């Protein structure tokens, strides 16, 4: 169970949210600039809320007094701007977070679905926008995290690839049973991927629906 309770002053409004995610798929849905990425960054430990508390089960990620470094939070995070390592090949990027070599077959499956096998030896500046996004998705999935954060994971993909990737995400959740938080702007996608949709506006939760 991931409990998130954040207060943080942003430039134009205060972000103030409070929600819990079980081993389910929660969608953050809201207009551009409503604080979605900020929430994911806080969970991953890439920024510090002004106050609040974030914990995953018994693991306290953050509260007034404590701060757990990003490294040990064990989150898988697909960044909105990918943040691929420019000096590493696709292969090195994807294998970066993998500890044990045994999981190879799971990864192979992911690579097949995402269709990025042929990019194996390419560097990020040598591949297309959508290819980058798929590599970033593979990288986030490859770590076998305790929480998965996906910031607009499929926005640069065409319909067909998108559908296949959605199915893969669902399949992986089936398998891992951990909290997924997914940001998307596409209502159809939200309804397909999520158990629960959190509607954000100017940093506040205005509605929560269960699919």
């Amino acid at each position, binding site marked *: 169970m991931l409990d998130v309770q954040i207060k943080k002053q942003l430039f134009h409004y205060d972000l103030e949210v409070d929600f819990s995610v079980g081993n389910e798929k929660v969608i953050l849905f809201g207009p551009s600039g409503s604080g979605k990425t900020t929430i994911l960054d806080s969970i991953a430990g890439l920024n510090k809320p002004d106050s609040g508390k974030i914990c995953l089960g018994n693991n306290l990620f953050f509260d007034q007094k404590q701060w757990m*470094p990003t490294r040990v939070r*064990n989150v898988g995070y697909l960044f909105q701007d990918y943040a691929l390592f420019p000096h590493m090949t696709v292969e090195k990027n994807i294998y970066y*977070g993998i500890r044990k070599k045994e999981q190879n077959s799971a990864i192979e499956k992911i690579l097949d679905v995402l269709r990025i096998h042929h990019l194996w030896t390419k560097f990020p500046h040598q591949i297309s926008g959508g290819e980058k996004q798929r590599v970033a998705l593979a990288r986030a999935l490859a770590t076998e995290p305790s929480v998965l954060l996906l910031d607009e994971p499929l926005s640069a993909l065409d319909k067909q690839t998108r559908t296949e990737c959605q199915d893969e995400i669902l399949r992986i959740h089936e398998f891992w049973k951990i909290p997924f938080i997914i940001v998307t702007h596409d209502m159809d996608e939200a309804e397909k991927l999520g158990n629960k949709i959190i509607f954000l506006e100017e940093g506040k939760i205005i509605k929560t629906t269960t699919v």
Partner: protein
Amino acid sequence: MNGVDYTPLLLSMKVAAISTSIVFLTGVYFAHLFTRKSFFGKSIIESFFMLPLVLPPTVVGFALLVLFGKKGWIGSWLLEWFDLQVVFTWIGAVIASIVVSFPLMYQSASAAFSSLDSRLENAARTMGASEWRVFWTVAFPLAWPGLLAGLVLSFARGLGEFGATLMLAGFIPGKTDTIPMAIYFAVESGQMEQATFWVVIIVALGFSTIMWLNWWSKRNMRRFSADKSR
């Protein structure tokens, strides 16, 4: 030019290699540490690092002599505990080279680390990388062009170092005579042919090392400085 004593060449290579290695490691270490932390007095320490560059080498050498001489703070301590004599030995030449070339490495590395995109380091952290791994796999390779510049500069400076070395290591033919000293004293005693010979040697040594460094870097680190455009 028969019967030339080649000790200056070997000595210079040894001194430059050792001092460059030490300067590279410590320069990179401090630059990385200092670009991430900010604390009171940081800019004073940073300015202090630049000191050996501002002062004429002879003065640096004099200061080193005061520190490392038999009666100096460090010198007496080294002598007592390690029975190590620095003055008039090749170790003195290494110390002099380190001190004069450190500012070059530090400043270059510092600039390189400060323009890194911390988003990439964060990405590595989310994947469970330790700070040590983040450094070696992300910060170091991405800062490489700047680090290489520092490496080239400090190697060249260490190789050419003369003033401070003369003071600390002395000019003892066959023992502490680096190439720059051999040149200086050949000029002093009017042996222009000898001086020219050594100038050619040091230039060849410097050039070939720098070109080798650049070539090696292009070969092994091409991707690190890869043009990020499509």
